């Protein structure tokens, strides 16, 4: 038994837990703030994205395409090294959060749009025929149904976001991945450390996923 424990380096990992704990807390903070930012960013973008006016929708489509089709790492670099050049010298934490939130916000915008468009046109007609204005129909009939549609894809997107927080290590934020790399540099125990870090990410993403499934089941049970 001791051999097995030693093979996975449990004792070593245990000795390094305070370092990992700091990194974990930072990862959690980046993930939570970025999630909030991404969800809000998507909500702000989806209205103009669905506008019939190309003057309104065009810039949002352009933004979404630009952000979706360039690497997140590049966007993190751009916000960290580029923002100071335009007079916005923000902290590394904020730069990381802005880059993650804006990319995932663009994906979420498209998810919201698909969810809204997936609600049958007949639901619009049912609401309008009762004398509701389009605005009332949207808020009382369409969006609540769209919300149920988008919970699963939002969950997927936010799981990807949690994993993407590791990229902010590139601008020197000592989150979970970088804290692991620093432990490896001191000890050389790469296998044990990466395995442990993978397990922590797995724990984070699977508990988040389980929470969302619970929400989804509750929403569906009401219909």
């Amino acid at each position: 038994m001791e051999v097995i424990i030693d093979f996975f380096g449990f004792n070593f990992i245990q000795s390094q837990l305070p370092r990992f704990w700091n990194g974990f807390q930072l990862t959690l903070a980046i993930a939570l703030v970025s999630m909030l930012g991404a969800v809000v960013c998507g909500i702000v973008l989806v209205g103009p994205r669905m506008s019939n006016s190309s003057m309104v929708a065009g810039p949002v489509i352009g933004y979404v395409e630009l952000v979706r089709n360039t690497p997140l790492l590049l966007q993190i670099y751009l916000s960290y090294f580029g923002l100071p050049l335009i007079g916005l010298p923000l902290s590394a934490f904020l730069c990381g959060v802005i880059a993650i939130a804006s990319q995932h916000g663009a994906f979420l915008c498209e998810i919201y749009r698909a969810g809204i468009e997936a609600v049958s046109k007949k639901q619009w007609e049912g609401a309008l025929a009762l004398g509701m204005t389009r605005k009332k129909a949207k808020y009382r009939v369409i969006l609540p149904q769209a919300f149920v549609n988008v919970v699963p894809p939002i969950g997927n997107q936010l799981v990807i976001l949690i994993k993407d927080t590791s990229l902010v290590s590139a601008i020197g934020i000592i989150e979970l991945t970088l804290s692991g790399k620093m432990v490896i540099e001191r000890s050389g125990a790469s296998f044990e450390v990466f395995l442990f870090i993978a397990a922590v990410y797995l724990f984070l993403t699977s508990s988040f996923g389980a929470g969302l499934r619970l929400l989804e089941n509750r929403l569906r049970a009401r219909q």
Partner: protein
Amino acid sequence: MNTKPDMPMICVKDLYKNFGDLSVLNGMSFNVNRGEVLAIIGPSGSGKSTMLRCLNFLEEHDGGEILIEGEPLGYRVLEDQTRVRQSEAEIARLRSNVGMVFQSFNLFPHRNVRDNITMAPISVKHVAKNEADQRAEMLLEKVGLIEKINEFPSRLSGGQQQRVAIARALAMEPKVMLFDEVTSALDPELVGEVLTVMQQLAEEGMTMVIVTHEMQFAHDVSNRLMFIDSGKIIEEGAPADILRNPASARLQEFLHRFRTSFL
């Protein structure tokens, strides 16, 4: 309710509607009087559903005019014949006087039966919640579904959903009810329960326009029957006359396809 007894409930003047190059309505004109039940029959693609949807502006007409109790719906025609589209709020207000029941029910799946019925009175007419609830209960009693008040639509049969849809439309206290092939999507065994509710409404004096394939029902319930084809009224008159003695070859051919055991 503000009523204008001297005016027809619905007045349709020279109505045109196109979908791209396809002309669906070609200059239809007719009136529906207060308390009248007008049944519209015609082959698939004849324009009957489109015409009905124009009556609450779910389809926007390209020419002509629709008046609900003398008030234009959708467009105001100025003296120089230019058409000015009404504001959305104005259209919504006019629509709230015209109840509509759809072939596929269009109930809101995320709300229970009670909420489906009370949502529009509360949000559109600003009726107090307890008053809207009482009216919902009364309407559900009327359509025989009071025990389903807390169920979600997905837990109801097609016939039950359609009866809830009728109750939902009635909750707005409309001046006229439009029925768009409301039994076409139902299992034949469930058609009767919906038709019974509609018959009861007709007997109570509700003004109704019914697009239907139920010839027997059209014959029994309507005061006037209209046969349309290619977006034009081919024949109209008393149901018994029209169905027993069709004047046009087109209606004779159409009726030939139905069993005429009721004649």
